[in-house]
């Protein structure tokens, strides 16, 4: 229940030689669910720990609702955080574990009891309340851990550090739904760290994609999917990721090898030189007739609702996601066809223009 603002916050574990998190500034609106998405070692946990106060950033200031909390310790910031693996108090029962954060803050006994019951209900662990968590399976232990994070109502933010890693796949869906539901009713500010894009995209109002210590793009799920601003986002978001091929821009005309595929869309002026052309498998079509880059179908996978077609060209390998009505089969030749709005040009891994297919010969 607070707006979180970072001002030029960065962190270095080795005294400034390298930054695990490059200085960034950002603001998360009160009540938003934000996901930090990125591969291992991209700095997402570092960012999370800076917000919770477990880590003091090397540079920059952290504000909750406009109040500078950079020098406040974790307990005073009052945030809740759930870790990747179960962290429990061995000598306490599940009930006492859930009550602990409230008890430490002097909440009245009857309030604690009601709150613990509510949370246990939400997480489906009511029947385990009176046993010690050490006796539970690790996924149930993680639920208790999760419960300790959710039990306080007055926190400015709840931070999750890949909390569902050890949870069973089926229950993950249920739980994610319940967390979402809970968020809708309580409107806590949620920050959710994950490397699982499905989790991030279904859970969050806003997703920040991190790579090598920097935020490469932030936006809603559809923004990240439909208009990636960075090659990494194109590649990391989507399953499978974006297709890339090397091309050249000369006087506005885009060529791959000897084939011209289009012109640079009028609004963006682009200097002559090399570009990378990115297109998602969803927006790539394969035609048996026509012009365009010629490919040979390598293999076709039937995936229930759609077909995944792998094609080889001398410019590279491509994957296209086609409808089940497609009759293409392995061994056939075809031509690539790009969707005008969904084909992007990248230079130095940043987006630098879109393609105007109509300009093609």
């Amino acid at each position, binding site marked *: 229940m607070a707006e979180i603002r970072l001002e030029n916050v960065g962190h270095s574990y080795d005294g400034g030689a390298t930054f695990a998190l490059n200085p960034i500034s950002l603001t998360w609106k009160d009540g938003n669910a934000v996901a930090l998405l990125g591969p291992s070692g991209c700095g997402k946990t570092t960012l999370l*720990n800076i917000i*919770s*106060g*477990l880590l003091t950033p090397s540079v920059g200031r952290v504000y909750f609702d406009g109040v500078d909390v950079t020098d406040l*310790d*974790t*307990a005073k910031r*009052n*945030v*809740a*955080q759930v*870790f990747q*693996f179960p*962290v429990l*108090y*061995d*000598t*306490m029962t599940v009930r006492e574990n859930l009550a*602990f*954060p409230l008890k*430490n*803050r002097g909440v009245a006994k009857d309030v604690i009891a009601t709150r613990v019951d509510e949370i246990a209900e939400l997480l489906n662990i009511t029947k*385990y309340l009176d*046993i*010690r968590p*050490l*006796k*539970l*399976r690790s996924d*149930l232990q993680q639920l208790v*851990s999760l419960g*300790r*994070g959710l039990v306080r109502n007055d926190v400015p933010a709840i931070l999750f550090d890949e909390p569902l890693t050890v949870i069973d796949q089926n229950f993950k869906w249920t739980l994610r739904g319940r967390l979402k539901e809970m968020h809708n009713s309580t409107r806590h500010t949620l920050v959710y760290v994950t490397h699982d894009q499905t989790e991030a995209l279904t859970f969050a109002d806003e997703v920040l994609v991190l790579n090598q210590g920097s935020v490469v793009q932030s936006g809603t799920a559809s923004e990240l999917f439909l208009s990636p601003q960075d090659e990494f986002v194109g590649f990391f978001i989507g399953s499978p990721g974006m297709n890339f091929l090397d091309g050249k821009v000369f006087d506005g005309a885009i060529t791959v090898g000897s084939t011209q595929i289009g012109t640079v869309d009028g609004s963006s002026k682009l200097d002559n030189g090399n570009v990378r052309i990115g297109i998602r498998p969803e927006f790539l079509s394969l035609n048996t007739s026509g012009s365009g880059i010629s490919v040979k179908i390598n293999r076709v996978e039937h995936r229930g609702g759609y077909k995944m077609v792998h094609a080889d060209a001398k410019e590279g390998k491509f994957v296209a996601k086609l409808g089940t009505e497609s009759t293409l089969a392995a061994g056939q030749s075809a031509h690539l066809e790009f969707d005008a709005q969904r084909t992007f040009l990248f230079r130095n891994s940043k987006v630098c223009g879109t393609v105007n297919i109509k300009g093609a010969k």
Partner: protein
Amino acid sequence: MKTRNNKAWFLVLPVILVVSFTALIPLMTVANYALQDVFSPDNRLFVGMKWFYDITNDPLIIDAFQRSFQFSIQALLIQIPLGIAIARIMPKSGWKASAALVAVSIPLIIPFNVIGSTWLIFSRKDIGLGGFLLNKLFDFDFTSDPKDGWGLILAVDVWHWTPLVVLLVYAGLRSIPQAYYQAAAIDGASSFAVFRYVELPKLRRVLLIALLLRFMDSFMIYTEPFVITGGGPGDATTFASILLTNIAVGQFDVGRAGAYSLIFFLLIQIMSFIFYTVLTLQDREEETKTK
């Protein structure tokens, strides 16, 4: 059917042989003595359980055991909490941690009789710094006041062996994953709550080892009282092992001493077993996980 090959048992033979000579045969010799009245190597008499009966009814011996018990309990009550307290405030990393570890370990690497001699001189009211000051302040004199003699031996034992508890607890504390401290900080736990609910439960195993080692060693304490007080003043520091040595090599009463040794040995075994059983009970409870 699987054919079983038990030849590997032969590999255990050397160990059995070594243990026989170092432990089993001496112990059986003691058991042998305990059942006889030995006047000289070729003049001995089988007396059955007489020595055991004598010893369990000898007020001198019972007093000595009670003193040893009391000493052990006092030593544990001081050393365990003190050891935990020191380990908790020791630096966690860097050169300060190494320096602290070395400083703490010094008492452990000094030979027992050197410790005895050092403290003996240090505590004398005429030439010892500590003894002189304490004598001026509290009329301290361990050679004449039984309480002072007892206190001095206890102080020496605390000085000598608290470092062992510190090292064990320090190692135990270092092995607690950082996430537990982070979670406790998130949960707003006080420093005491962190100790009570995070550290103490995680330290249970090392504390069990510390408790066992310290109980056995303090219950068998010999060198320090032998060097410093010689069991006095009066019999204030005549612990079980001091009395045993007096009987065995002072009076050369090997029959009585043999029976005494066996009872001593058994007592330590039983006490250790009880400690171990009580403290590991919880572990076994927790092994059965709910599905």
